[in-house]
């Protein structure tokens, strides 16, 4: 599976006895390296942080699935040695929805780009957040369509140039954390590719989270966004991150607008608990089964109302008799680590 033997130690520190190569080689498909990403692009860093988070949080590799859409970021699924699905443009979230709902034991992660997730896939994003599907969505935002050569994206800051906005972008960009949180995401964070330690921590938190997690990673696109806009190289963008980023956990995502210059608000903005679609579904199923067994009980001789129960046996259409309880959720509790303290815990599984 892994034909390339990484060459170690040359020109670095001395190679050490027992060194078994780069620790991420275990989770990466090294037979597919080098990856296609340009020098100074932050996608490798994001994947690196993802791999570290997987390694560190002890999640079962075999239960972790990665789904990507199309674009530079879309290739991420192909570089991770996990069950990986490289789908069509914009459709990673619905594909992941199917994987997750058909087997809720899996942890399904979507890694895709800003164009994929917020333009063509924007509708899927907001609905997945609204349903609170138990998914992790990592959106790498580099302000541009990279793979197709630098076209304007829904995240391109106003005035910035792209091949399809040669005189400057006329549109207001999406504030993705705000979009996700207002749609119902239960964990919303943003980091830059410089915030590697925080990114790893948030990824780990998201892997353990039950609910819809949306993590935006701001990343340089040196070749197609920065060069066209005379912003320097990848390193220049990283330096901008260093000077402009403002860490504010629990900040109102409404304030997280991004411009071509100015502050970049980062942090974990939202962390709350709310019933997921799968939980609500299982609760409904349990209640239906319960109601059914009660009806059977009543239908027995000496039961409560033998006349009514079972009368429609051959033709029962199976309309749900018991309505599922509306999902409880703590939509107030905004901010990192906010637990629904004192309130009844949201049911994680039906009895």
């Amino acid at each position: 599976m892994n034909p390339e033997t990484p060459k170690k130690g040359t020109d670095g520190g001395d190679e050490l006895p027992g060194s078994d190569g780069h620790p991420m080689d275990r989770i990466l498909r090294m037979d597919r390296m080098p990856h296609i990403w340009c020098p100074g692009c932050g996608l490798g860093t994001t994947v690196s942080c993802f791999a570290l988070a997987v390694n560190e949080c002890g999640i079962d590799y075999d239960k972790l699935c990665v789904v990507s859409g199309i674009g530079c970021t879309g290739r991420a699924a192909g570089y991770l040695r996990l069950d990986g699905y490289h789908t069509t443009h914009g459709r990673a979230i619905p594909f992941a929805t199917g994987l997750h709902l058909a087997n809720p034991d899996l942890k399904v992660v979507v890694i895709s780009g800003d164009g994929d997730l917020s333009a063509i896939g924007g509708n899927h994003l907001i609905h997945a957040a609204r349903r609170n599907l138990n998914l992790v969505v990592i959106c790498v935002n580099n302000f541009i369509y990279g793979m197709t050569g630098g076209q304007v994206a829904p995240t391109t800051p106003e005035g910035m140039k792209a091949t399809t906005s040669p005189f400057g972008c006329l549109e207001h960009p999406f504030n993705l954390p705000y979009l996700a949180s207002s749609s119902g995401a239960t964990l919303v964070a943003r980091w830059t590719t410089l915030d590697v330690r925080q990114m790893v921590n948030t990824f780990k938190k998201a892997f353990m989270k039950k609910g819809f997690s949306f993590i935006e990673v701001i990343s340089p696109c040196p070749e197609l966004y920065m060069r066209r806009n005379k912003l320097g190289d990848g390193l220049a963008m990283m330096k901008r991150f260093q000077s402009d980023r403002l860490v504010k956990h629990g900040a109102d995502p409404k304030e997280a607008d991004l411009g071509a210059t100015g502050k970049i608000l980062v942090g974990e903005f939202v962390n709350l608990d709310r019933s997921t679609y799968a939980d609500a579904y299982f609760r409904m199923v349990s209640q239906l089964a319960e109601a059914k067994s009660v009806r059977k009980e009543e239908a027995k001789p000496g039961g409560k109302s033998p006349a009514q129960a079972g009368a429609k046996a051959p033709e029962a259409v199976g309309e749900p008799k018991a309505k599922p309880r509306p999902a409880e959720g703590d939509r107030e509790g905004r901010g990192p680590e906010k637990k629904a303290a004192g309130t009844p815990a949201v049911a994680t599984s039906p009895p």
Partner: protein
Amino acid sequence: MDSGYPEKLTMQMDGTPQAESPQFWRKPIDEGKAPKLVGVVLMIPERCKGCGWCVEFCPRKVLVISERFNIKGYHYPRVAKPEECVDCRLCERLCPEFAIYLKRSPAQGGS
């Protein structure tokens, strides 16, 4: 290698990288008692695409850009001050090419 890490030892607990090596404004009370971590930087130069992030953001300025080219024609990083490394692993996380990683010094039991 322990002897190489005197009073300047720093751990970036929040991970915020800093361009300049920080100066302590006061002396940690456990100085001398806390284990001093020592890292060994390992590199796979053929993977490097020369973005320079590891060099720029290493809090201890362990790395410099090498004069040499790798197989792809990039100047890859070189360990200039091995004794400065404190195994913070920022370079390992930052590297977009999975080209750089760390081992804890065998003197500390490895990792």
